């Protein structure tokens, strides 16, 4: 188990990571998610032993302060692979086992095993300079896994690849990590990557670990508005939670996962009931708790019923249409919101639409 205990990394007197604490259980994949410049790569480098830091990095309780990089047994995959250009594919993958003094025959077997694992069987003698980006990243992963590291550190491993490749490689990577059962820390700014790969999530912002926990828990209940916004929330409203049902100006939905009595101390709902909503029942009234509701774009869908507004902009995505809708006339205090429309829907700027609430896109903040 890896324990990161109040680690601080300072560059030229500016702290890049401040008092960061993390834990990764054996076999678990933790994604360290944060915007660029949040210090996540720095924290990863500190864990690898590549960056001087204060605080403690422990493995199974042993402080690694005096343990140099090459004795930590932590594998590292860089964003751009950093394969050794003077060695072929097998030479790269066999590097770690060679450092461990593995006999050549075993090394060969291990190389073949790993190439098989990453789906590049038979690539042994290829020069690494002739690999495509995706192949190079697979080889880099195989190289890092070859010496059976106790912890695998992935530094934005898919960011250098094109979208389609990224998606398929992410899925492959899930399989590889499951099969290899390697404890993994993944650094990424891409939520999709984090969700695809990780069991747990830690959100790093401005050098601080703002929140960590189960991926779905963090997704549903971001710790604060900053985290929520980084996790895709575009609209933040006041709402009310009653018996697992959340109400906000755009309507109410059942959120069975919502923590009973989850409450933010922030003031009461700003303007409930300003518009009539499709589901409209708000009978139980005052006994609920005030909460902050975060809406991702797909929490609001263009529908037949709902809160009316005027389309301001429209952008087509791969599987939906993204719109911004001016709702200032129907929801006081809110000007525009992000929403989605089905591909079949023809919406144009200036169109009058209605927005319905979808529970999948709703988060409880705080």
């Amino acid at each position: 188990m890896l324990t990161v205990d109040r680690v601080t990394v300072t560059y030229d007197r500016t702290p890049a990571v401040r008092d960061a604490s993390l834990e990764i259980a054996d076999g678990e994949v933790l994604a360290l998610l944060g915007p660029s410049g949040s210090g996540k790569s720095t924290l990863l480098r500190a864990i690898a032993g590549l960056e001087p830091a204060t605080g403690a990095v422990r493995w199974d309780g042993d402080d690694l302060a005096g343990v140099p990089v090459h004795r930590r047994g932590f594998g590292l995959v860089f964003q751009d692979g950093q394969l050794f250009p003077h060695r072929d594919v097998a030479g790269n993958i066999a590097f770690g086992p060679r450092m461990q003094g593995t006999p050549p025959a075993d090394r060969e077997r291990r190389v073949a095993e790993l190439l098989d694992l990453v789906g590049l069987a038979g690539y042994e003698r290829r020069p690494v300079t002739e690999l495509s980006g995706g192949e190079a990243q697979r080889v880099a992963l195989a190289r890092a896994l070859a010496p059976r590291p106790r912890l695998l550190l992935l530094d934005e491993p898919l960011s250098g690849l094109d979208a389609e490749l990224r998606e398929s490689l992410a899925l492959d990577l899930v399989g590889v990590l499951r099969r290899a059962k390697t404890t993994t820390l993944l650094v990424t700014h891409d939520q999709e990557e984090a969700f695809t790969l990780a069991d747990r999530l830690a959100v790093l912002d401005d050098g601080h670990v703002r929140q960590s926990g189960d991926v779905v828990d963090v997704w549903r209940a971001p710790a604060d508005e900053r985290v929520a916004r980084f996790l895709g929330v575009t609209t933040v409203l006041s709402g009310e939670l009653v018996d697992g049902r959340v109400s906000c100006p755009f309507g109410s939905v059942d959120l069975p996962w919502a923590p009973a009595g989850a409450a933010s101390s922030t003031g009461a709902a700003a303007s409930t009931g300003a518009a009539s909503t499709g589901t409209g029942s708000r009978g139980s009234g005052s006994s609920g708790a005030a909460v902050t509701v975060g809406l991702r774009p797909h929490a609001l869908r263009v529908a037949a019923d709902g809160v009316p507004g005027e389309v301001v902009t429209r952008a087509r995505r791969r599987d939906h249409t993204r719109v911004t809708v001016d709702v200032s006339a129907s929801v006081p205090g809110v000007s525009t919101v992000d929403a989605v429309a089905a591909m079949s829907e023809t919406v144009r700027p200036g169109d009058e639409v209605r927005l319905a609430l979808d529970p999948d896109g709703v988060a409880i903040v705080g």
Partner: protein
Amino acid sequence: MAHAARGLSRSARRGPGSRGVGVVALAVLPVAFLGVLFAWPVVAILRLGVTDGGVAATLAQAQTWDLAAFTLGQAAASTVVAVFAGMPVAFLLARVRLRVAGWVRTFLLVPFVLPTVVVGLAFKALWPGGGVAAIVLANAFFNVAVVARTVGGLWAHLDPRAEDAARSLGASPWRAFRTVTLPALAPALASSAAVVFLFCSTSFGVVLMLGGGRYRTLETEIYLRTVQLLDLPGAAALSLVQLAAVVLALVVGGVARRRRERAAPLRAPATTARRPAGRERWVVGAALTVVAALLVPIAALVVRSLSTRDGWGLDGYRALSGSGDGALSVTGWEAALNSLRTAFDATMLAMIVGVLAAVALVAAGRARGRAARLAGETLDAALMLPLGVSAVTVGFGYLVTLDALPGDLRTSPLLVPLAQALVVVPLVIRMVLPVLRSVDERLRQAAGTLGARPARVWWTVDLPLAARSLAAAAAFGYVVALGEFGATSFLARPEAPTLPVAINELISRPGEPNTQAAYAACTLLMVVTAAVAAVIDRLRTPNVGEF
């Protein structure tokens, strides 16, 4: 990955100061080498001069400063010529996939290795009046190879896609070169220009032959005063001026280098060469023109070695094989063998010292502490000094000091190799350092996370990536040692002269047969050099990848 660039220091968590200790251990041998074989003899000579008085008087003379000005001026002019001639050749070596490139790489070593006296003679044959232009051209003639091979070595490793990117942003080929490639080449360019400048400012044989009585440099004046006028205080004073000028040049060069030296992403060299297209052909044409120009004096030498009073003949070569006819104490062939052996020893010594120093300098440059960086820069400059100090001073210094060491080094057969190594070490460092510095830190970190100790990282990552430069440096060092004349002429035992010493001996004797034999010996030296260079170049190529 901006962090990676910022976080170059990896001293990290490896117990406090352990890295510093390593750097110091690496630097011990180079520092000791420099101290015993350079600083001590030179200081001894300077003291000899200073204690006799008269230094102040020499410094007060206007003539002294005229000499200094002329020395630096001709060196600067020669450097400019060498750089402009060397750049197209570097392009040819690095980026052009043509058979001729390989031949050019090998051939370039020939001018560089020729004994200065011989080149002086060759240019005098072409330019009977001598003069400043002849001096500058002759100095440049030697040093085109330094620029072309040093710059070409880095160029071959540069990722050409940066230039492609610039082209796609609307830059003309020339603009792309100027704004993208040239800055990336700056470390190698500055390094080689510094070396060339030092070589030219201590150029001896060329100035002696082509300057006549009119043009003298500090080096020839020191020689004159030490050997002929026995004016040691005067020589010491001039040595001081030379030393000061050289230190100044090194400091300026060091500041310029530090500002420009940045890690450039390196690629395996094979992927960067391509057939020339469009205007690149003009550059290749320019490179070949430079090569042709370099051939002229060499051809003149060969022609002279073959022409006798009555037409063509091999009289000169025949004279080489016999020690009779009052020629030499040994045959020309024996002298050639001597040269090969001595140069081999010198190269081994220089590679050990030079590579250790380069590794220490790289480590010091990456260190976080300012003190370590400062120490590195000081060592860097100090290791260049031997290039800039008169070989005459050093050679003479050996005779004065080295008997104090146990086992009297003065009679040891290692003396000449050590002296030659002193000249070769700075070259090795300048050729190896830019490439070692350019190795991507993250590659080394990747090796570290895979379980490689720091020494192992060096052995498995840095060394193979720098292999080409190391081989080039060794080849270069070898041929420089082969042709070294100044210190060797002072130190070689009479019964074991090297080829350049033998040549000088032959030239200084009257009579056509002797001159003939000298030219024949020069040709022999050229052939040996070309053969060695070809062998090393061939050995090296398959080794670029795996180690």
